[in-house]
């Protein structure tokens, strides 16, 4: 794991939370009994603590923990907050800024003195504070450098749309003769269009969001769920720097909510049970993001009690019905997939026994809608892992774009080993090629093969596997090897079961991205 990368993300995220914390603390100072504000303050500090703990930043985690303790008491109404208490928390937040910037290093003797003062006071009850208060000379903190802004997603969409419309103007350029247009002007127009296309592509990248940012949306949810079910839960993110389309992540919010709820409520055991079982008191949920070929792989795993096989066996025997022998022969992934069935989820009792809450079918449907798939792996007392595979939508990938008949198609460049020129394919040779045109129902009369694409890895075409002769197929013409902005298929095209997405080229033209696994 690249720890430095995660520390950098931590600094960015925590700084954002600390800026927000300043504002809410100031609000609280003017509205001391407002328990909702104290809840928000608590949430921000808790989020920073969670991230700091994951990165072993003990000072930050410790200070956050002490600050949290006070907030909890104010939030619960056990103790009335005072202006001095708010001031101490503001001082604590300032110190956190120093620690975050120094990645848990106090940095200077003066800061160390401040550390001692604040932690000593926070160690006492807020009630005690008044006895310790002495006038202090405080430095007035300057606003931090503005190096990022928040922009409404719809504005990005609007900018993208505008740039596309300007690009479309090129197509309306009236045909001008050499007399009417100078070479210089022609070059100028070409340069202008080239820069505009580049701008459009860069704007498209604004639609991408790091997985880390997505995960942090759930920090509060995890905290609240853990509290509700009396669990001690930590979250770890691997591959959080991977950038994914906001639209796709937004559609994954609900499924993730279900998965997290199920992990916390039914997977991870209560702390005492975990300790008795020889596990850490704190249960762990790990979210791992990875990019493989043209797919996004998201794994959500917990180290809880695992899925109870007896409940699934009972369901398969009674509802399908299957014999013991048939069940024992089932591969694990197929066996566990039974919990995704609609009637399994509706059998509330069975589901609870299985260690998963209701709604697994909802998750499966949502993933299916995104043209993705999910596999489940679980081991008793070791935990459960859900692996979600999704076509990488709205990401930028490099692809070979080609013509076949009237169609403009593409496949990821990473799949292609070579491109060869061909004059014509004789009937004797044709057996050596995969007939992509025929598979896609493209009229042979409209095809004029001139190039042969040899695939690097034959991913399941005609049953070919690695080690066998590489798959080759003929195409009419190669348009190019170029970056494509890949957008998800709509419901209708997804039903064809052959496409991975729709690729938008830099000039705004479209190609249909083939799903090589399904062809």
């Amino acid at each position: 794991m690249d720890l430095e990368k995660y520390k950098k993300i931590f600094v960015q995220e925590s700084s954002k939370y600390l800026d927000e914390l300043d504002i809410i603390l100031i609000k609280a100072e003017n509205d001391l009994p407002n328990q909702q504000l104290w809840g928000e303050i608590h949430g921000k500090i808790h989020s920073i603590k969670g991230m700091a703990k994951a990165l072993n930043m003990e000072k930050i985690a410790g200070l956050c923990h002490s600050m949290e303790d006070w907030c909890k008491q104010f939030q619960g109404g056990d103790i009335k907050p005072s202006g001095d208490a708010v001031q101490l928390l503001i001082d604590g937040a300032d110190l956190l800024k120093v620690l975050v910037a120094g990645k848990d290093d106090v940095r200077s003797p003066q800061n160390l003195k401040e550390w001692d003062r604040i932690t000593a006071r926070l160690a006492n009850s807020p009630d005690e504070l008044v006895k310790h208060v002495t006038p202090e000379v405080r430095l007035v903190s300057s606003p931090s450098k503005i190096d990022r802004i928040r922009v409404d997603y719809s504005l990005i969409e609007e900018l993208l749309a505008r740039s596309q419309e300007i690009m479309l103007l090129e197509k309306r350029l009236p045909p001008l003769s050499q007399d009417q247009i100078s070479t210089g002007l022609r070059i100028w127009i070409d340069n202008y269009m080239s820069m505009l296309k580049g701008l459009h592509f860069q704007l498209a990248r604004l639609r991408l969001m790091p997985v880390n940012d997505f995960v942090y949306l759930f920090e509060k949810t995890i905290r609240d769920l853990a509290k509700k079910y009396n669990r001690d839960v930590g979250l770890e993110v691997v591959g959080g720097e991977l950038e994914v389309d906001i639209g796709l992540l937004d559609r994954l919010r609900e499924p993730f909510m279900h998965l997290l709820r199920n992990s916390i409520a039914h997977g991870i055991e209560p702390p005492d049970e975990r300790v008795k079982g020889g596990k850490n008191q704190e249960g762990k949920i790990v979210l791992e993001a990875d990019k493989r070929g043209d797919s996004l792989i998201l794994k959500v795993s917990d180290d809880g009690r695992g899925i109870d096989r007896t409940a699934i066996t009972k369901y398969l025997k009674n509802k399908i019905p299957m014999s013991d022998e048939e069940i024992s022969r089932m591969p694990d992934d197929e066996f566990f997939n039974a919990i995704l069935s609609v009637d399994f989820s509706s059998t509330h009792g069975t589901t609870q026994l299985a260690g998963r809450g209701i709604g697994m079918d909802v998750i499966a449907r949502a993933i299916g809608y995104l043209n993705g798939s999910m596999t489940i792996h679980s081991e008793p007392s070791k935990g459960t892992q859900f692996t979600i595979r999704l076509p990488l939508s709205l990401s930028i990938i490099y692809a070979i774009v080609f013509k076949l008949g009237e169609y403009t198609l593409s496949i990821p460049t990473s799949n292609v080993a070579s491109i060869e020129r061909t004059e014509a394919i004789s009937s004797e040779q044709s057996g050596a090629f995969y007939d992509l045109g025929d598979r896609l129902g493209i009229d042979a009369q409209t095809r004029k093969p001139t190039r042969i694409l040899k695939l690097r890895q034959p991913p399941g075409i005609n049953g070919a596997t690695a080690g066998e002769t590489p798959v080759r197929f003929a195409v009419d013409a190669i348009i190019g090897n170029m970056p494509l902005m890949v957008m998800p298929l709509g419901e209708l095209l997804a039903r064809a079961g052959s496409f991975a997405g729709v690729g938008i080229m830099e000039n705004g033209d479209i190609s249909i991205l083939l799903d090589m696994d399904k062809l």
Partner: protein
Amino acid sequence: MECFIFEAAEKCLGIEIEYIYRIADDIQVTPVPLAPPCYRGVIYFRGDLFDVVDVGSLMGGERSLLNGNPYIILLKWGQRKLGLISDKIIGITWIENNNGSRTVFTKEGRTVELITPEEIYKILSKLAYGP
């Protein structure tokens, strides 16, 4: 209600104006293999992908002849997006309360069959996609 009227399959069809997102012109429709004949392809417009369907062909009539890049009626409702190719665009007309009737008459005496995007989508959904 305000209705957008167009001709397809030798009929006058009307869609409530609230579903009309834009009338796009000069946009090339990219054909997609394995789709039914009425499915003409996809377009990328203002950051969105639209399935484009030939209404005449969908309604069992003749397939529209695409001369150049035709006008495409873009519809957006809920999460769905659809582009319609018609034989002829008539325009926007005010239609008096239709009392739930699907057949209405314009002031010019035209007989219009009202249709919703969801109905078009349902017909499209029933068609076969794939090999």
